[in-house]
């Protein structure tokens, strides 16, 4: 294990290299520009390919091409750019192609702003593009997790032959923290992909495709995809708990909002309020099992987000109506302070007692 001080966006780039990714395609957009900048330097060093494409649309389709040819491949962007990529993500899900897509979210809608936000939760978790498909969505909350989740994302993408999204935000991408890098990190060989289109020498032809003009065939294809998504729900829920053992007010937050919520839990505890934090590390599949467990002693939930409360409905579904679900959030790139979240916990505590 070695330790490096790294910027979040750089950690994503380095983790991709370590995961055996040798193809990156992207288009500049703040606040994720350090990822293409880092990889434009690193990819040539390891014999990889870096292309700054003419658009986000071109980038995701280059990803489609490289993935079809069997490579581990990544693209990254921020909110408006991800909107442009969603068509391609749907095609990849339909064609069962693995890829890693990183979204360092900024404020929206529209051109929005460039400050960190979490307003793309619905887009990431509920689909984004057209058709019945899902992508695993990983929600890192530190530079360390940006590194380890990026590596994990490549493995999950290959395991399920499906795009995987890393949902970060501008703050995570820009901050610097220590990262522990396993010494065996370098050059993970990508797995064999007999389904890839590499030229048909010694075998019959391969077709990478999402078009099924016969509705019955398309339904069969969809059933197969849905079975795969069900396996993801069974196996890939990830979450972390903090001070939940005896908590009465359970905060639920991910990413940057979770870091603030954690601080607020400590503040509340210092004021003798039994608060705890449940932090989803996968937003899809949402960690319903973990949430029910974490909420064992809770009297109420408080969802904290940098959005209008997009995760609230998943928390409500997860808690199955057993507890009231409250919400505190800021929008537009305003990051809530520990103080204002603590005040919200205190207010809620007052309501409960």
């Amino acid at each position, binding site marked *: 294990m070695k330790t490096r001080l790294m910027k979040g966006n750089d950690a994503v780039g380095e983790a991709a290299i370590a995961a055996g990714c040798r193809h990156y395609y992207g288009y500049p957009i703040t606040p994720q520009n350090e990822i293409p900048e880092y990889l434009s330097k690193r990819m040539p060093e390891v014999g990889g390919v870096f292309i700054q494409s003419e658009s986000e649309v071109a980038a995701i389709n280059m990803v489609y*091409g490289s993935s079809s040819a069997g490579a581990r491949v990544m693209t990254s962007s921020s909110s408006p750019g991800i909107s442009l990529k969603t068509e391609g993500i749907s095609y990849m899900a339909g064609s069962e192609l693995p890829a890693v897509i990183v979204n360092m979210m900024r404020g929206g809608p529209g051109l929005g702003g460039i400050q960190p936000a979490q307003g793309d939760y619905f887009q990431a978790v509920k689909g984004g593009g057209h058709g019945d498909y899902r992508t695993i969505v990983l929600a890192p909350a530190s530079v360390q997790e940006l590194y380890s989740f990026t590596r994990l994302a490549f493995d999950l993408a290959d395991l399920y032959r499906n795009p995987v999204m890393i949902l970060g935000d501008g703050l995570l991408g820009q901050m610097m923290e220590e990262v522990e890098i396993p010494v065996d990190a370098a050059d993970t060989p990508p797995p064999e992909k007999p389904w890839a289109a590499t030229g048909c020498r010694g075998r019959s032809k391969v077709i990478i495709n999402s078009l099924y003009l016969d509705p019955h065939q398309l339904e069969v294809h969809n059933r197969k995809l849905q079975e795969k998504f069900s396996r993801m729900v069974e196996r890939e829920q990830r979450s972390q708990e903090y001070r939940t053992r005896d908590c009465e007010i359970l905060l639920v937050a991910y990413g940057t909002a979770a870091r603030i919520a954690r601080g607020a839990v400590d503040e509340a505890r210092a004021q003798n309020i039994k608060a705890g934090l449940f932090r989803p590390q996968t937003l899809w599949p949402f960690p319903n099992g973990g949430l029910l467990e974490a909420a064992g002693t809770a009297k109420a939930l408080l969802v904290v987000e940098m959005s209008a409360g997009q995760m609230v409905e998943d928390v409500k579904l997860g808690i199955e109506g057993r507890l009231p679900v409250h919400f505190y959030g800021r929008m537009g790139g305003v990051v809530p302070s520990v103080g204002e979240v603590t005040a919200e916990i205190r207010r809620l505590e007052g309501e409960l007692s």
Partner: protein
Amino acid sequence: MKIVAKRPESLTSKDFHYCPGCTHGIIHRLVAETIDELGLRESAVGIAPVGCSVLAYEYFNLDMLQASHGRAPAVATGVKRVLPDCAVFTYQGDGDLAAIGLSEVVHAALRGENITIIFVNNAIYGMTGGQIAPTTLMGQVTTTSPGGREVGMSGNPIKVCEMLATQQGPAYLSRVSVHSPAHVRRAKKAIRKAFEMQMQKKGFSLVEILSTCPTNWGMDPLSSLDWLEEEMLPMYPLGEFRRPGG
């Protein structure tokens, strides 16, 4: 018995779905013969577009990808950058390449991406029922230019080879036609040259092939061939717009 003509190895035995008189079938065959002759079938990856040739992946007997509308050059870029020794080609119509996908083909050309683009120009959207295309001629009647193409509503037609020839990136640009046996033979030569350039790692090659669409032009197949010669050739002159060493 000596076999003098047979289906190219690079075509499957599946029947084409193309309309009677449509020249897509000829162009498919020319591409397949070329791939056979150059011994590339087992190292080729083709990209089918959205449009009439969306099902090209069923007809070419080699590894095939289906791409989203207009993005085939970007997809081909992604494939080629993983498999630099494979013969990577796209097969695109005029709506796919010259309307929705114009950015992708231009930038692939500017990068000198070492891929081959087969660009079928029949001056109309075929698959969706005969709407105006970027290559539709002035005055040409389509289902979305019912009074004939005029600038005020639909702008001017695009000359893709001429436009790309103004740039440094492309290595080979040629416009050919398939309206007569002699032209079919010349088209084959251009396609072969494009693939040869790619295998010699010379960079971006594009062959624009003028093609007929009797169904959506509202003509019988023979009249379509005449219309191509009389109406399309003056607008889209044949020739090499960028050639090896030129």
